[in-house]
């Protein structure tokens, strides 16, 4: 119980840090954010201006501490401010409509990449020194290549030249999003190439990590005792080798979620995919600060949530952590 309380305290602290960074960064920056926005949006409505001033503490809204307090209260009520480009739509409703795109595509691509990379890593380690294992440098090169560079080359090849896939966007322009077959089909079709690029660029990292862990694990005594027991090779590989080697890989999965989000962001810019990454990019390039702030908060909290889930799953797969908790 003590352990669980500690972990929960950690997540509360991390969430608080994200929220606080979000509050102070715009205020710590040189120059007046509101002035910058005024320049960007010369025809800002009076209501929007007032909302902005309150949000960034420009008006006469009292001390910094006071502002911080009302900011926290707002966030606890789910009030993330009003969007400037689509005034007066609340930021939260815009985010809510884009979040599923990112979650579904990036989530499934990441899980596929993790599973595939892990599987390939297991085989590379098991057949160490084989022709397959010697393909590793190729994967390293893929892993070191900037994501957007590879993605754009693939788009140029498969979409622009071969017309296998659509080049951009999440669905055909003419369609109205909704739960009907035309739209779902279109959305799936549009998601293939982005998903493929994510998998291609990230699978090497998982593979390398799993291979090295697996090699280390195969050197353990319990693998030797499995051999001495006369178990079938497949059983040794999976139940004794991979089952143990996957644990650190699993832990790495949770810490790499931040990177996953970052990759998604660039993916969405490259493909003009209607997710939170593109939204953030557009907000940044158009100085839509309320949106930037809200998106950073949402992304941070989403990563924290995913981390928490990964941690819970880890407890389920490693019996040793369960005892640590009981103690």
């Amino acid at each position: 119980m003590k352990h669980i309380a500690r972990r929960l305290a950690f997540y509360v602290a991390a969430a608080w840090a994200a929220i606080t960074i979000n509050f102070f960064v715009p205020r710590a920056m040189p120059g007046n954010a509101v002035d910058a926005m005024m320049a960007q949006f010369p025809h800002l409505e009076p209501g929007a201006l007032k909302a902005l001033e309150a949000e960034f503490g420009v008006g006469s809204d009292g001390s910094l501490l006071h502002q911080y307090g009302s900011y926290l209260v707002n966030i606890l009520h789910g009030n993330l401010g009003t969007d400037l480009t689509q005034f007066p739509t609340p930021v939260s409703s815009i985010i809510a409509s884009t979040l599923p795109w990112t979650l579904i595509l990036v989530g499934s691509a990441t899980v596929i990449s993790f599973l595939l990379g892990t599987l390939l890593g297991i085989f590379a380690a098991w057949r160490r020194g084989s022709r397959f294992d010697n393909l590793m440098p190729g994967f390293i090169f893929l892993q070191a290549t900037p994501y957007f560079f590879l993605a754009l080359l693939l788009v140029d090849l498969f979409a622009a030249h071969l017309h296998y896939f659509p080049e951009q966007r999440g669905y055909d322009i003419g369609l109205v999003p909704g739960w009907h077959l035309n739209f779902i089909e279109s959305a799936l079709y549009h998601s293939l190439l982005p998903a493929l690029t994510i998998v291609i660029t990230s699978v090497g990292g998982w593979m390398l990590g799993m291979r090295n862990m697996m090699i280390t694990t195969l050197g353990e005594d319990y693998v030797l005792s499995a051999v001495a027991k006369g178990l079938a090779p497949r059983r040794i590989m999976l139940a004794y080798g991979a089952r143990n080697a996957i644990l650190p890989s699993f832990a790495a999965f949770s810490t790499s979620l931040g990177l996953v989000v970052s990759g998604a962001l660039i993916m969405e810019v490259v493909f003009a995919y209607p997710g939170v990454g593109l939204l953030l990019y557009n907000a940044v390039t158009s100085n839509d600060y309320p949106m930037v702030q809200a998106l950073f908060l949402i992304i941070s909290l989403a990563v924290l949530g995913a981390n928490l889930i990964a941690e819970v799953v880890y407890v389920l797969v490693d019996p040793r952590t369960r005892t640590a908790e009981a103690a």
Partner: protein
Amino acid sequence: MTSVRVALVPKEGASAAGSRRRLLARWRRLPIKARAGGSILAAFCIVAIVGPYLAPYDPTSDIVSGLQAPSVAHLLGTTMTGQDVLSEVLVGTRATMVVAFAAGALATCMAALIGVAAGFLAGLWDESLSLLTNVFLVLPALPLLIVLLSYKSADSSLGITLVLSMLGWPYGARLIRAQTLSLRRRDFITAARETGERRRRILWAEILPNVGSLIAVTFVGSVLYAISAEVALAFLGLTPTSQWSLGTILYWAQTESALQLGAWWWFVPPGVFVALIGAGLVLLNMGLDELINPRLRDTRRGTATGGRSWRPTDPTVVAPDIAAHSIDVARHGIVSAGVTRSESSAPVTGSPQVEPSQLLLEVRGFSITYRSTGGAVGAVRDVDLTLHSGEIVGLAGESGSGKSTLAYGLCRLLRPPAVIEAGSVNYRGRRSGGARVDLLACSPDELRELRWSEVAVVFQSAMNALNPVMRVSDQLIDAIDAHVTLGEDAKVERVERLIDLVGIPRDRMGSYPHELSGGMRQRVMIAMALVLYPEIVIMDEPTTALDVVVQREILSQIIELQSEMGFAVLFITHDLSVLAEMATRIAVMYGGRVVEVGSTTEMVERPAHPYTRALLRSFPSLWGPKRALAGIPGSPPDLRNPSPGCPFVPRCKYAAASCTEVAMSLLPVSAGEAGHVSACPVMLSPSAEHVAEHEIETTS
């Protein structure tokens, strides 16, 4: 993580030429991946330094017409506005590398500072610094970077460098903290603390050198992170687009639709440059990983794999006694006569009882060598050994004497650098119906069938030999499933019976290994070894890791089980007094050779080899009366360069001049005692006999 002090920083040499040669030698010894990665990076560093001077054109001026394909004048063509791409890339490489390396260095400094401080100061400092690290670790870095840059704070490379390093440190800090913490707990630092050595000295002399390689890994990782983040940000147009870097070239190429216009020469070169730098960094990091984790190091894959009964894994053997499998059987062609496949795989019939004193295992001329780059180590030399049914044979010797290698070698459990050079291991068990099976010559499948059902092993450390994520009962059932077909109920019944036999409460069957005490784990290991009622159980120091009380309990239990179930035991230990209590016969090994074999009574009462005698005096008896203890001066022989004759000569007080000349052979000790043989001709001579008797009288 033991030998982290690696050859990263060359020590200062006496002469310039000598140190250069040493440097070169060290470079050659680095893993190939580290050398490849280092070379790529060095090449790009040179490009970054001299590139801008080599650029044929000013990358900012529009000199020619736009979008020219590569030509002699413009090797990489021109951009939309007519700038030379090659010049841009050469200039851009410097900017990208400077930012990435500076940010990487800064992030590494922060990581080292925070990591070492947290691990070294411990307590509240550790708590708060770790919290800080973990919070930064879970915050999504790139979105944060974008947010920071969106407020126009970083118009300069310096600003970007600072922001990148601010977000790049936590991963390394976590690694370094963990390493510092484990170093702090290690003996030598605890000792240093106790001697009142000043903290600063401990930090500089003990901790920093040992986290050095980790700091190097962190640096390479941080640079990799910084370069990919910098290029991504530049590509998104979030860094100043008027300053040339590889990312900005890509930004402009994309903005001006270079690929759509077919101008690949504009888009591809900067991307490939980034990929190459990244690949160099990844390779270097993999090489450093191999330095830190020797199991990853790629030495030879072992000669023949001895079939594919299981996959070759670990060519470098870390634990000296447990080496790897890869047996070069085919080369020696040791195939025993009269063994056919049908005989060797005959099903179990009749009772497991075998006639007493039937010869079960016969090892002949067995030699095993560890072949490493540093030379060949003859760990086991020309050993003969027999094991009869129902017998407990003790195999004794100091660590490094080859006893464990011998035991693992005869069931082909050794891994790559270990190669079985010669010999035969003939087994006659119930499965073969009394016919001989040469364990070294049988196929992987035949071997797999014999393992555990005929020859089981109790490993030295049950903690390490039990799968940590599998319930104890499942590990026993695993062994059953691999060899016999039993119904679920029958399996559970069998497991329960064994668990009862070794004295573990039944409600612990569903436990995981870490939930059991050390003694309990070793009992589980023994139960697991007996679950298929094997003919032979090899026990590799099964009690050394336990405290004396538990040790005695388990030994008594082994003796009890053995007399009840009638299996034969090959018991490996360095402790002769244990063997004196339980063994039927004892074989003593020294320097890879068996130097004396005999019945326990003979060996204890009339040891005929000086080494046996020394061993007898160096352990207190577990059960017997007290006597004076004496260590054995000197150290075990260097098996790389074996000296001719008896290997014990340098430590032997009876050594004569002839000892180094005559090849060792086992000679009968006395006509009356069959089976007592010794390799010491000096002590067998009548004059030495007298000396020996006298000595025993005075020591007892």
